[in-house]
């Protein structure tokens, strides 16, 4: 509990929300989980506060506690919550009902399940307003239509009579926001409202939140794991770790000069879209995982992983002011220390440090602290750019590993009636792609662009309808399963969902060993065991993991197992289909680093599919942008972000949030209007024309060919390069 003056609090008006020493616990059979362990913060009227943390930090439980939405076995066991000066925890059920949805509203993460699927939107919106007694039925209906329009839904008078399943994710989130705002709340709590949405839709929703904060004066508590999202909306931020607040301050200050090692780690683990990364491309990561909530350490909870750790850290630090308006729970910074930028070699260990005040630099070593030993040979060493190029030159760079021409894959939909025309989803509609040996090609696009289908067709899970796929000189587009089988040793895939991509009934030893035996790479049980153990250490897991089942591992560890399985057959080419999207930020960085190391060690070629542009920029040599089944732009990584030629690429880049308040404030947020068109009935000519600001008549008549504009830079646009709203790419704001 601190009394430092906070920026944003007027000091005169009562804060809209004041939380003091909140404690929420889960009473499970295994023990008591202290999910929220003494959290305090306050939100002034009209202020936007961000709460950032990874899974297990307690941020969502905090949000649910604010509205007392928790069920057994969780209980709020201590603390004080005051909303507009009135006690929330002591309120009786009727007062709480008035509060929820009335003056305090909440928006949840998953738009697919937030709305009642059997009720029309009108009923759900009107009900919210009528129940709180502010409007009659008719007034409520009018207001509902207005709110939907305000939230950016086209033709709201018609939309209001639809059912939720007729809307896309982004539109559903707008409906939920409309419901939340319909009673003019003083406070809106948004729990990861954009995590499940595409980047351009996320940008629209964030812009909406900014407008609500600005125009309606609604205070916002925005919970997210994405620092960029917070930087774009919130003036102040609270960082949570293991149930506690570890840092608090204005977003600008916290992101530019973090005063807690965990914040520091989060900031440095995130690839940035507006920065060109140094030669070896490694991200800063901290080994290990958040502490087991049933067995929290006595001292500082971050100490076991902290690279700035000192002796005093065995004592649990309090949250104290480290600068005017800034609090941090760290002995090092409370004593005046500042946290330096990491060195280029970046796997950090929780090693102590001799001195206290002054600049604290993290200790970098080759071994991690986690209980699973790491392969010492896998320690990172910075590889100079020339050496990397040399590696690929030796391996025959320029030699085309994969050449795809005119690839088409359509999926017929079940017919609605006997006489109806059969509808077809044009998932991939004429894609050309080249991948050279040793390079990493990034494939980006939003939901519905066909990237997952493309991946599965390339690896021949599906058979293409037309086109050619020439892999190492052989066309495998129309090959039979038997012909492809030997090729399976040379190309493999890593999947997105770490929870579904490993067979839950097989041990790790079987999962990795079966491919070895099937392809004849190991003949006896002993050989298999040996190779499995070797593969496990290559990906940073202990060989003892082989006897365990997938459910005993965390998401990041499971992805490592997936990678080990893919490596087992010694492929040349790996297609990674969103391998890190389901993971926390720090774990994402670990997996990215692992994949880069493996690429150097084994000379792998990657096709890296992702929707996170910052990650793709970081890891790829060349990038391919897909839109609705077609390639719209191909360029080298740096070039794509500095001089994008296609308007869609420009929008995509602009939509990616940057964890830097100054940049976010200065950059121009290009708003891509509307929703992506349906793949069943794509627009004629150029598919992007329905949302393109520079579309002209020819765009509807002639599909633009993928033409080369400069060396290696291709774009499919009749007016490539003409859309220049801010005079430059992602860098304009930074240097502006």
């Amino acid at each position: 509990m601190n009394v430092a003056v906070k920026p944003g609090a007027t000091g005169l008006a009562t804060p809209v929300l004041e939380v003091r020493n909140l404690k929420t616990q889960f009473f499970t059979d295994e023990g008591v989980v202290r999910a929220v362990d003494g959290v305090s913060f306050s939100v002034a009227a009209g202020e936007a506060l961000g709460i950032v943390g990874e899974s297990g930090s307690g941020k969502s439980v905090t949000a649910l506690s604010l509205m007392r939405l928790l069920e057994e076995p969780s209980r709020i066991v201590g603390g004080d919550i005051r909303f507009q000066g009135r006690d929330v925890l002591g309120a009786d059920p009727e007062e709480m009902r008035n509060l929820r949805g009335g003056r305090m509203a909440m928006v949840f993460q998953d738009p697919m399940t937030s709305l009642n699927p059997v009720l029309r939107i009108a009923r759900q919106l009107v009900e919210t307003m009528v129940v709180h007694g502010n409007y009659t039925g008719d007034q409520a209906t009018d207001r509902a239509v207005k709110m939907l329009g305000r939230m950016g839904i086209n033709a709201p008078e018609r939309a209001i009579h639809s059912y939720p399943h007729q809307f896309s994710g982004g539109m559903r989130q707008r409906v939920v926001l409309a419901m939340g705002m319909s009673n003019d709340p003083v406070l809106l709590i948004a729990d990861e409202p954009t995590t499940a949405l595409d980047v351009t839709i996320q940008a629209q929703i964030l812009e909406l939140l900014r407008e609500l904060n600005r125009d309606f004066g609604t205070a916002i508590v925005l919970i997210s794991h994405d620092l960029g999202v917070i930087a774009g909306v919130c003036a102040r931020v609270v960082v949570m770790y293991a149930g506690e607040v570890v840092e608090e301050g204005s977003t600008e200050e916290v992101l530019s000069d973090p005063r807690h090692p965990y914040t520091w780690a989060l900031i440095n683990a995130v690839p940035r879209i507006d920065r060109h990364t140094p030669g070896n491309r490694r991200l800063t990561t901290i080994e290990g995982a958040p502490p087991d909530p049933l067995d929290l350490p006595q001292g500082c909870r971050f100490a076991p992983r902290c690279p700035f750790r000192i002796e005093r850290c065995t004592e649990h630090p309090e949250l104290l002011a480290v600068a005017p308006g800034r609090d941090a729970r760290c002995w090092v910074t409370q004593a005046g220390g500042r946290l330096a930028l990491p060195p280029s070699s970046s796997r950090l260990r929780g090693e102590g440090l001799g001195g206290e005040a002054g600049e604290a630099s993290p200790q970098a070593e080759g071994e991690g602290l986690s209980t699973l030993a790491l392969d010492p040979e896998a320690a990172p060493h910075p590889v100079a750019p020339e050496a990397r190029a040399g590696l690929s030159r030796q391996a025959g760079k320029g030699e085309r590993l994969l050449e795809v021409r005119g690839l088409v894959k359509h999926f017929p939909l079940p017919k609605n009636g006997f006489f109806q025309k059969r509808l077809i989803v044009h998932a991939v509609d004429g894609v050309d792609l080249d991948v050279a040996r040793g390079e990493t090609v990034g494939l980006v696009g939003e939901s519905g662009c066909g990237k997952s289908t493309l991946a599965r067709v390339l690896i021949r899970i599906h058979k293409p309808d037309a086109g050619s796929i020439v892999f190492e000189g052989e066309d495998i587009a129309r090959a039979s399963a038997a012909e492809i089988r030997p090729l399976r040793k040379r190309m493999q895939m890593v999947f997105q969902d770490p929870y579904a991509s490993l067979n839950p009934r097989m041990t790790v030893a079987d999962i990795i060993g079966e491919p070895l035996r099937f392809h004849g790479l190991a003949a006896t049980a002993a050989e298999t065991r040996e190779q499995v153990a070797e593969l496990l250490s290559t990906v940073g897991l202990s060989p003892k993991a082989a006897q365990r089942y997938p459910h005993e591992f965390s998401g990041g560890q499971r992805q490592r197992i997936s990678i080990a399985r893919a490596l087992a057959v010694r492929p040349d080419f790996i297609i990674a289909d969103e391998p890190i999207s389901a993971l926390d930020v720090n774990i994402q960085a670990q997996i990215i680093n692992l994949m880069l190391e493996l690429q150097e060690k084994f000379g792998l070629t990657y096709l890296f599919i992702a929707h996170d542009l910052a990650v793709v920029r970081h890891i790829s040599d060349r990038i391919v942008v897909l839109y609705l089944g077609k390639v719209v732009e191909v360029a080298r990584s740096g070039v794509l972000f500095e001089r994008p030629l296609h308007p869609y690429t420009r929008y995509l880049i602009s939509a990616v949030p940057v964890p830097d308040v100054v940049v976010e404030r200065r950059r121009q947020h290009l708003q891509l209007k509307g929703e992506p068109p349906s793949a069943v009935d794509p627009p004629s000519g150029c598919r992007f024309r329905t949302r393109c600001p520079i579309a002209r008549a020819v765009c509807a008549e002639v599909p633009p060919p993928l033409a080369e504009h400069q060396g290696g830079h291709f774009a499919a646009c009749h007016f490539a390069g003409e859309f220049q709203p801010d005079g430059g790419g992602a860098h304009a704001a930074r240097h502006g």
Partner: protein
Amino acid sequence: MTALVDSHSTVLAVAPVRSRGQRWRRRYGLAAAGAAIILAWILIALLAPLLTPYHPDAVDVTVRLQPLSPAHWLGTDALGRDVLTRLLHGARISLTTGIVVVLVAAAVGTLLGGIAAYAGGRIEELIMRLTDLVLCFPPIILALAIAAALGIGTTNTIIAMLVVWWPKFARLAHSLVIVQRSQEYVEAAMVIGFSPARILLRHIIPNAVGPLIVLVTLDVGNAIITFAGLSFLGLGVVPPTPEWGSMVAEGRELVSQWWVATFPGIAILTVVLGFNFLGDGIRDWLDPKSRRR
């Protein structure tokens, strides 16, 4: 749906942390009881000749329809045979037929349903329409018709029941495999190069087997009742083989000599209950949400 409960308490309450034994008993007590009942009956079936001094087919008209007595604990039937002895020997037939029918039907049904789901297209249509066809008929009537056509006898009745029993397993297996076939681990197996047969048998079916096991245990009770019913109707076992259903049939008009029909009925009841408890327990055990972690 559980209602949202108001969660604030001013007193710092600590919920009791139960011991492992207590938790286990609470969750699986009934299932253990069921397993115990079944095991007891299996033992009885195996040891039947040793448990009573009488032979199940020994006719002695001098002691017909005797009530419960120290010599005949459960009385005698219309032919003077000891009811208890016939009951214990009857367990052999009833349990065996029940278990055999269900296991074989489950195996056949799962295979067909799994193939239908994984192969898709015409094969799926063919197999699923076949299951629809069989399921159109009321099961006992169809079994009756087939058994009547084949003739009386245990084996024939089992065959008749098999024809009627496999579709429900095929249906269940089909829906389970459909869920599994689009999972990423199946795609991963395809990418490694395994054949469809191998993927179905070694990868998918083990993941789909949970609900099938539950259905098997719950269904043994059904099969026993159905077989008893067919015996009751005159098919099934050849007299004088002791079987619970036919024993009930013999005693159905003997209202004052209630012991002839009642005890076989109770036997059927206990076995079916036992399997039901066990089945519920297995289902709870397999449900990931109720697992310890």
